[in-house]
């Protein structure tokens, strides 16, 4: 009897051991805010590589679109999961904007996880700790940093304006040849508006770093009135991609774009390769995209592995910097050994690193940010 028991135990143990070696099939579902290039990045580049590394994992990428609307969709879905009271949520990983991260933390939809992330210590930017003036330390790992700039077509613009002030003069001479997308359909237009307010405001640093006080908003009506006047001379495009398309089609000669999208479009042949970039004085904001893990993600372990994978220096260099033209989220010293000189030359061709340090601004803190967007709706669009 005892021997039989022993044999059975042995078999069970053997089975369990064998089981441990065959990992369960997992579908890793991730929701990604941002333009199509973000979705392509995960679906066509990262997912195949990651699935090679972990053959039991299938990565499912769901794109939710650019701008705050894309982040809003993610938050709505996570809220639905939370309201359903389920123990395991269907979304394992999200890639989200700064604003979305803050909504997620406020509502308890994302969790702290970066203590378990080995690549977290490679991050040198402050964006891993603070987003829009809110402490997000522990909740997020930046995926990349990106910057907005003004693209111009040298065929028509021989001497591009080097500052917002010169731009205002330029549009008066070339009406309807500058285009941006307002504040809907993507962040490139939003960035342009924020840059405008920084330029005109007496306290741009307060807007970026706080503290929040309504007294710093006193000069806003005048600032937006001037923007409304400026808008009379510009073309309204349809979103981030709309500005790029209008540039490519020669319909506008200048417009604010995301640097990464701009270079990716050139690589794909969708953008006239003669078009150049300039970062005007006193600067325009950039932003990171964040990896975050939902509070009750069913496959948080694999989500963590995927984040590690994308932010590990070799992969980061090859895909984030080289292929997709984003600025790295981890320190440049960690990625540069994996990159050729020509990659950096391309990345910093038009906008030098020094320009980036001087004119690459931060987004305004959350309280000002919301009010700036509302002010635009109220005073400029109406």
């Amino acid at each position, binding site marked *: 009897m005892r021997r039989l028991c022993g044999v059975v135990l042995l078999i069970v143990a053997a089975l369990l051991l064998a089981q441990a070696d065959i990992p369960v099939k997992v579908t890793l579902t991730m929701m990604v805010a941002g333009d199509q290039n973000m979705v392509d990045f995960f679906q066509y580049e990262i997912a195949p590589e990651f699935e090679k590394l972990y053959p039991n994992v299938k990565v499912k990428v*769901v794109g939710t679109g650019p701008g705050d609307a894309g982040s809003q969709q993610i938050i709505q879905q996570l809220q639905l999961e939370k309201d359903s009271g389920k123990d395991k949520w269907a979304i394992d990983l999200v890639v989200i904007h700064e604003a979305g991260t803050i909504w997620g933390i406020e509502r308890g939809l994302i969790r702290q996880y970066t203590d378990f992330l080995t690549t977290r210590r490679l991050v040198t930017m402050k964006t891993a700790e603070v987003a829009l003036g809110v402490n997000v330390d522990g909740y997020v790992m930046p995926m990349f940093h990106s910057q907005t700039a003004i693209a111009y077509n040298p065929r028509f613009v021989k001497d591009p304006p080097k500052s917002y002030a010169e731009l205002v003069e330029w549009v008066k001479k070339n009406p309807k040849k500058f285009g941006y997308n307002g504040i809907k359909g993507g962040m490139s237009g939003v960035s342009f508006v924020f840059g405008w307010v920084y330029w005109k405001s007496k306290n741009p640093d307060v807007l970026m770093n706080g503290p929040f006080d309504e007294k710093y908003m006193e000069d806003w009506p005048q600032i937006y009135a001037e923007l409304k006047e400026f808008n009379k001379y510009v073309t309204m495009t349809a979103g981030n991609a*709309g500005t790029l*398309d209008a540039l490519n089609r020669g319909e506008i000669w200048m417009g604010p774009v995301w640097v990464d999208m701009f270079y990716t479009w050139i690589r794909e042949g*969708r953008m006239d390769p003669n078009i150049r970039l300039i970062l005007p004085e006193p600067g325009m904001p950039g932003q990171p995209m964040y990896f975050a893990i939902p509070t009750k993600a069913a496959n948080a372990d694999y989500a963590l592995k995927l984040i590690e994978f994308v932010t590990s220096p070799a992969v980061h260099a090859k895909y984030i910097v080289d292929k997709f033209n984003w600025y790295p989220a981890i320190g440049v010293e960690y990625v540069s050994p994996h990159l050729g000189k020509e990659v950096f030359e391309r990345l910093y061709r038009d906008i030098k690193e020094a320009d980036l340090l001087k004119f690459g601004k931060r987004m305004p803190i959350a309280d000002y940010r919301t009010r700036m967007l509302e002010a635009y709706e109220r005073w400029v669009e109406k």
Partner: protein
Amino acid sequence: MSVRRFSILKLTLKVVLVFIILMLVVGPFVGIAIWSFARVWYWPSPIPQELTLRYWSEVFRQGRVLDSLILSLKIALLTVGFSIAIAIPAAYAFARYRLPAERILLFLFLMPQAFPQLPVFINLARIFGKMGLRGNMWGIVMAHTMASLVFSLWIITATFKSIPLELEQAAQNLGASRWRVFWTITFPLGIPGVIAGAIHVFLWSMGEFNAAFFIGAPFIQTAPVLMYTASAGYNMQIASVIAIVLMIPSLLFMFVIERFLKAEYIAGIGG
């Protein structure tokens, strides 16, 4: 002499008129046809600098485009099945049972097509969200079945009504049951109407955006939804390729079902 000059003038006028009509009606498709083959196309070149078949090959290759087309096809075929299956008995009842308030009842089914449907789909998506049917193919099939009932129901009702009652009565007098009469006489005679109805439903479902977007996206993307995202991202080539693929059945079937056309129910097509 003057007669001939007049006819030359008339001919020129006619050529110009044909050109203008072609430009107005066919022109919009020339643009997307060119885009679907373009690799590099920037101003001021009137035609693309480089051409490619890459985007067309995505229609036949495993990937986003093919997936969305297959999904749309599946949804459309399931919708046709459900819509016809529900419509046939109802159409027979409307044609043969002298139901009270027949016109009002029939009009009810037109409501999803002749009344703003967007708010209904938005709220349906919300209901489905609570039931876990969002991002699910069956959610879209259900919405499509509901909204396309009018096409199958109205066309089949009209067809059944056009079948002479005497034929059925003759069979009934010979002792056939109503069930038997339906399957041996009414239904076979009504098949053209059933097919026309099915084609209507199919075309509508293949091109439907509102329900597919609010119920399916972003989790599953039917061909129109993918076309919308591609076009919104100015991914002109992908959007144009899908647009052309989706247009083919519309143009083909138009000639098949032209004689069944009736304004009220085509009104819904495309919406």
